[in-house]
């Protein structure tokens, strides 16, 4: 199993997802489309952590669903372990479903209230017919729960979700993913519903798993501040596209795209002595039905020039690992 960490084991090429948004009028021929994901390319290496950052509506959650096969892409390809998995039906995808697992944002909503914790964590094993005997299944469930920090597992087995706190519930969701021994975990805003004191705990847990179990993590979040110490690379998304991608230090310390700079500047700093200039973008992410012409960020960009209205910037290679899509960014 130990492959070199440079291996591309998940590769996304030009992925697009358009949702139909109805016709503008009854007599109009062309339907409008929501450009949720509009040409995303990305590679993920084994046991790598990529943070996918952006405001709501930027398409980051849709991208997660596309990778899970829970939505069908409009264009582009997804290659996993040298197999094209872009359009597979549920039957063909079953084995993949074991290897790629998802952790959702809201641990209150993503657990069935009528199941006990034991039933929830055992369910994936039953679905995949894993574990030869009842006893083996029980052992796997216990191991997954304890790896997810629910120790001792016996205390939690017969409880119901409503008897647990938010952090514990998110651990249950993670345990239910771990029990299948996945290779990739897609975590969609796993901590945004949790209290700050518990967030660190869930992030630390994901970071440990990646080391102890060689799991690659796609960490989807709107908070650049929370990706700090455990992401290897950070991809910043705006309106369905990646606008900047680089190693964690490159993006956090030398951000190039004006959107990344703005996102970084509004992260609350828990120290009143460090009150700093914040770049507060006005308005909100535009409606992804009508993508602005030229650079899609120019209407909100604080440093936009006239050329930005006309030409859609391509990615500029800034270093071996660092790219940004902005006309003002030049390769020094």
């Amino acid at each position, binding site marked *: 199993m130990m492959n070199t960490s440079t291996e591309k084991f998940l590769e996304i090429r030009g992925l697009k997802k358009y949702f139909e948004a109805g016709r503008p009028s009854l007599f109009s021929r062309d339907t409008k489309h929501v450009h949720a994901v509009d040409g995303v390319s990305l590679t993920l290496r084994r046991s790598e952590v990529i943070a996918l950052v952006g405001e709501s509506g930027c398409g980051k959650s849709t991208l997660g669903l596309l990778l899970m096969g829970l939505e069908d892409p409009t264009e582009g390809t997804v290659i996993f372990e040298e197999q094209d998995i872009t359009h597979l039906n*549920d039957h063909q995808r079953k084995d993949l479903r074991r290897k790629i697992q998802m952790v959702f944002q809201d641990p209150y909503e993503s657990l069935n209230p*009528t199941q006990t914790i034991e039933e929830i964590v055992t369910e994936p094993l*039953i679905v*995949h017919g894993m574990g030869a005997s009842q006893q083996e299944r029980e052992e796997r469930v216990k191991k997954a729960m304890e790896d997810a920090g629910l120790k001792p597992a016996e205390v939690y087995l017969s409880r119901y979700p409503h008897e647990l706190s938010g952090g514990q519930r998110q651990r249950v969701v993670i345990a*239910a993913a771990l029990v299948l021994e996945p290779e990739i975990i897609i975590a969609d805003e796993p901590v945004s519903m949790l209290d*700050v004191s518990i967030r660190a705990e869930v992030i*630390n847990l994901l970071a440990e798993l990646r080391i102890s179990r060689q799991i690659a993590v796609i960490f989807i979040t709107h908070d650049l501040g929370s990706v700090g*110490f455990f992401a290897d690379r950070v991809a910043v998304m705006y309106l369905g596209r990646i606008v900047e991608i680089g190693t964690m230090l490159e993006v956090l310390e030398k951000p190039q795209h004006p959107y990344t700079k703005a996102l970084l500047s509004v992260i*609350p700093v828990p120290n009143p002595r460090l009150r700093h200039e914040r770049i507060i973008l006005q308005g909100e992410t535009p409606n992804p039905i009508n993508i602005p012409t030229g650079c899609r960020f120019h209407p909100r960009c604080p440093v936009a020039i006239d050329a930005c209205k006309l030409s859609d910037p391509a990615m500029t290679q800034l270093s071996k690992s660092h790219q940004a899509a902005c006309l003002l960014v030049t390769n020094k």
Partner: protein
Amino acid sequence: MQITTSPTPAVPSRPASGLLSFWRSFSRSRTGLIGFWMLVIAIFVAVFAPLLAPYERGASTSVQIDDIYQPPSSAHWFGTDDAGQDVLTNFIYGARVSLTVGFFAAFISIVIGGVFGLVAGFFGGRWENFLMRFTDIMLVIPDLPLTVVIVALTKPSLWNIIFVIGILGWTTTARVVRSQTLAVKSRKFVLRARAIGASKFHILVQHILPLVLPILVVQAVLAISLAILNESTLSFIGLGDPSAPSWGQMLNFAFGRGAMSVGAWWALVVPGFGIVWVVLSLTLLGQGLEQVLNPRLDTHHLMAGRPVVQKEAGAKPIQSDVLLEVQNLSIHYVGEGKAPARAVENISFTLREGELIGLVGESGCGKTTLMLALLKLLPSAGQIANGKVFYNGNDLTVMDEEEINKIRWSNISIVFQGAMNALNPVRTVGEQIGEAILKHEPSFPKDKLNARVSELLELVGIASDHREHFPHQYSGGMRQRAMIAMALACNPKVIIADEPTTALDVMIQAQILELLDTLRKKLGLAVIFVTHDLGVVAELCDKVLVMYGGVTAEYAEVDVIYNEPKHPYTQELLKAFPDLTKPKKKLSSIPGYPPRLDNLPAGCRFAPRCPAAFERCHTDEPALHAPQKDHIVGCHLAEASK
């Protein structure tokens, strides 16, 4: 599909306690209980009919004319009918027929309706179209004439009647089950099950059905009563099974054979009473079940009650420039037979004009309870056990409802957590803000209302032409701004913002924070900013009150809290924060979870999670210490450092 090996999810793994707890909550509903016992009596009568009936079934005492329509006597408690038979005996056996028809017919309609509803709701598309259009057609055809036609064409035997009533009575069930299925299907745990790789059948049986079941149970109870009524109607018009005399048939015979003309009321009243009894019992039972099984109906705990106030002489406001002063406020939640939960204890803080105080704590630490208590909006179980709340020198805790209503909104207003989702979707935002103004200032001139609404919207950064728009045309951030505009409607002096940015993106959060900061500078507003995020308040507040498990952990100027925190909880919270200047640093987290308010640890409430806890912390509750002026710390360690 391996679902055979898993236990049925509807039955919890601890069935005894599950049933027991169900019964406990059910027995709280009086209507439900009455219905239940009424039904038990009816079933008892039906089951033990041969033992209870004074005469044998169908046996006439004699065939003499005199015996027909005998009034009630000691031999025949409820008289005799047109054939000289004992009415009570027929009534008791009639219960058997009516209940049999009710239960079996209801079973058929629930199975058909349940399957149709589940399949249509879950699979959607063509299946849904076909099944729901079919249901619509069935709904259009009047039930009773169709039943009459079918029963008349077939032999009117008991089982034919059951079958016909059953296959015609499923439409409501199908519709109700479908809408519940649609609701459950859209929940996140169903998506998670798909992500795991579960088959559709597995999801349907394991995840959808258990949550549709409660509704199905309620529907079943109603279907039984409907079936009994239908059977009575059929029998009354003479289409009953002559070999199985039901209450409807008793009515039919009495009515058709002159009971009215001879004044034999008993022959009509007794079977009528049976029908009313059973249908009433089922309706009451259904209502009781619905209250327990459908949590949306269970709203009593949200109703504002009047907290009991322990009046206490003494404390007076200290400083005159203070707008709001909270002194030693304690709030307890009381429940029957339980020790009061000490949700908030001994909280004090002051707020001056234009000041912004941050109230920080984890969820469940009592911060929302505290805010509700300021305006006496606590649920009825919440009581102010001690303390005072002075606004402009007047104690709010002793005010009656009328007096406090003058303070609410016009002097102190609240932006509730998640309030942006509380806007009425079918009315424009402008109308709703206008309504808020009129509610608190009924004399506000109507012609100036629109201008005032526009002014408020512009104040919070919304162009006034959005006044005519509906909430769904607003984005999340704009809705939150609209809620702030609504809170400003009556020019309050104090705004309580309860987690106003929690569900919003970082950029929108920054916009809202900037807005609150501008508003307080422009209007001199005092703001209480409630949040779980220490980072959010660092940049704009003057003072911070850190709460833990309902008590003050630390209260000080903002700079002191962030740079010289004395309480271990504050210190740990700050360490849990990602520090962008040192991105590689591992985050530290506070082990364990906040205490449950109904199960507080002895001693310091933070002790079980505290890295600096020593022996005394587990036994003695720490007092509030003041290591320096305007700095309060609820920790034993602060006493030593004094």
